[in-house]
């Protein structure tokens, strides 16, 4: 086969991979076809990798196979983490993706230098800056989510100024390089400064804001892959990068909308975003609390129950106990459904994955728009470790930081029961008037323990 024929075959293999990647995402449109989508993605990736190995430019196969093997060995455990560790796993894999994109850009620079064109230098600098900042930014995000780093936002005076100056420095260095591609000694500084900027960008942001940050980093990583495709004239990188980039972008827009926070605010790194400390709980208001026995009695008397899970369920890893509760109530003829707020938990779709893990059928999971009309007909709304996403202040209190955020209408149900450990606020740091309603019963305790107690009670003290 002539070299040209091989090149054409590789190009067509890449096209096939692209088509399979697009189909993979299309098939995620419903859980019924989603696994087929993964298969399509896998085949596409295999086609792309095999076609690349056929590239006649490649001479050093042995080490590549070793590197692939190491990648597989590292990747396996990262594919087998428990569901509760998915947020930090995602951040970590963004870091790997960004690292790889940045390293390729760096090595391409040193291969071409000093015969690099201005245009090529511009592409590579942009690619390396975005790759570099995404790498360190994702590492910091992973550290915060894994609670290796402090979760609270770390802020100081003049922070915006410092961060922006660092970014400016990276850009200026890159511009000098573009004008004088010979000044190779500047290139390491571009790399280091963009790494530094990634740290400065993410450190000030609170741990609970990490999901939005991760999605944005996702879209940066996609962008850097696409830029790499421009540098190397490789269309499969451009397409995969564009798909990844738009996915991250859309998810962050969805999150921002669901939190009613401005997108530009997050887009520009949510600089200096300071967590408002817990609002003073108004005095003189009382809450009614209840025991697992009371809760069990109310639940078994209900004919329809809607469960509104939140971050607390994830933290407590209560999903399996919730499944037991679902089973026992369903067996008694109670209609049990789940209402999933788009930003419940700490990443998009968080609750869905946890509940699916616990074997709760997905047709019982309603998204917010489907669930809200159901609450007025429900006997009990059972809130498990959710707070902000059920806060009626979002509807009425124009002064509240979450004013305008769409919420789950749990307060429309006949009775509301809330499982959490205390009256302390959630992510947004604000008081929740829901707890002081006459129809609300507070069930104080850890979500896993409390749900377990209810289940034991319902089973007549005999089970678990």
């Amino acid at each position, binding site marked *: 086969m002539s070299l040209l024929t091989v090149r054409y075959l590789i190009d067509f293999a890449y096209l096939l991979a692209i088509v399979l990647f697009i189909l993979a995402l*299309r098939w995620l*449109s419903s859980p019924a076809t989603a696994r087929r989508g993964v298969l399509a993605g896998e085949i596409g990736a295999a086609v792309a990798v095999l076609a690349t190995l056929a590239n006649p430019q490649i001479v050093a196969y042995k080490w590549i196979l070793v590197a692939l093997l190491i990648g597989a060995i590292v990747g396996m455990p990262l594919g087998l983490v428990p569901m509760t560790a*998915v947020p930090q796993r995602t951040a970590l894999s963004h870091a*790997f993706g960004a690292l790889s994109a940045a*390293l390729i850009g760096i*090595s391409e620079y040193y291969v071409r230098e000093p015969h690099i064109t201005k245009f090529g230098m511009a592409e590579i600098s942009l690619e390396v800056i975005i790759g570099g900042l995404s790498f360190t930014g994702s590492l910091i995000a992973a550290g915060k989510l894994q609670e290796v780093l402090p979760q609270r936002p770390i802020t100081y005076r003049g922070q915006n100024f410092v961060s922006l100056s660092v970014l400016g420095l990276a850009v200026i260095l890159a511009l000098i390089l573009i004008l004088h591609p010979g000044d190779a000694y500047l290139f390491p500084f571009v790399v280091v400064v963009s790494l530094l900027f990634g740290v400065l960008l993410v450190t000030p942001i609170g741990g609970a804001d990490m999901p939005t940050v991760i999605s944005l980093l996702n879209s940066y990583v996609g962008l850097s892959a696409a830029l790499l495709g421009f540098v190397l004239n490789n269309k499969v990188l451009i397409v995969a990068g564009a798909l990844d980039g738009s996915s991250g972008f859309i998810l962050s827009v969805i999150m921002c909308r669901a939190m009613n926070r401005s997108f530009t605010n997050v887009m520009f790194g949510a600089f200096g975003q300071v967590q408002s400390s817990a609002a003073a709980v108004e005095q003189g208001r009382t809450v009614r609390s209840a025991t697992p026995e009371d809760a069990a009695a109310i639940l078994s008397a209900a004919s329809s129950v809607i469960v509104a899970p939140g971050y607390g369920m994830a933290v407590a890893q209560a999903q399996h106990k919730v499944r037991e509760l679902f089973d026992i109530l369903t067996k008694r003829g109670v209609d049990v459904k789940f209402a999933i707020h788009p930003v419940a938990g700490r990443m*998009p*779709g968080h609750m869905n994955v946890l509940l699916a893990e616990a074997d709760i059928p997905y047709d019982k999971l309603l998204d917010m728009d489907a669930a809200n009309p159901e609450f007025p007909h429900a006997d009990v709304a059972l809130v498990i470790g959710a707070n902000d996403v059920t806060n009626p202040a979002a509807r009425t209190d124009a002064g509240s930081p979450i004013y305008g955020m769409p919420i789950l209408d749990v307060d429309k149900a006949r009775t509301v029961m809330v499982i959490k450990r205390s009256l302390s606020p959630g992510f947004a740091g604000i008081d929740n008037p829901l707890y002081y309603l006459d129809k609300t019963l507070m069930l104080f305790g850890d979500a896993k323990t409390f749900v377990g107690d209810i289940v034991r009670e319902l089973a007549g003290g005999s089970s678990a």
Partner: protein
Amino acid sequence: MPSHFISSVYVFVLAGFIGFEVIKHVSRLLHTPLMALTNALDAVVVVAAIIIAGRAQTPLSTILGLVAVAASFSNMVGGFLITDRMLRMFKLSRQKKP
């Protein structure tokens, strides 16, 4: 500007449109698997890493390339694995007790 630049721009813009159209219609249920899957797809940068490492032009480029191969391939393996694990969990009521 290299000659392929403009066609790269066309491909990028069109792929971006496809991304928006397709992602918009991904089921809300599956947003976590979506993040994992796009991660795995994006790991196709391994292709570029293989070329960089495989050309063996300078020791530096080979070493950086090899690290990139390992880093992105770990994403590919891990990403597909966890996506499939997650999706296997999603079941309908009637599928629940076979």
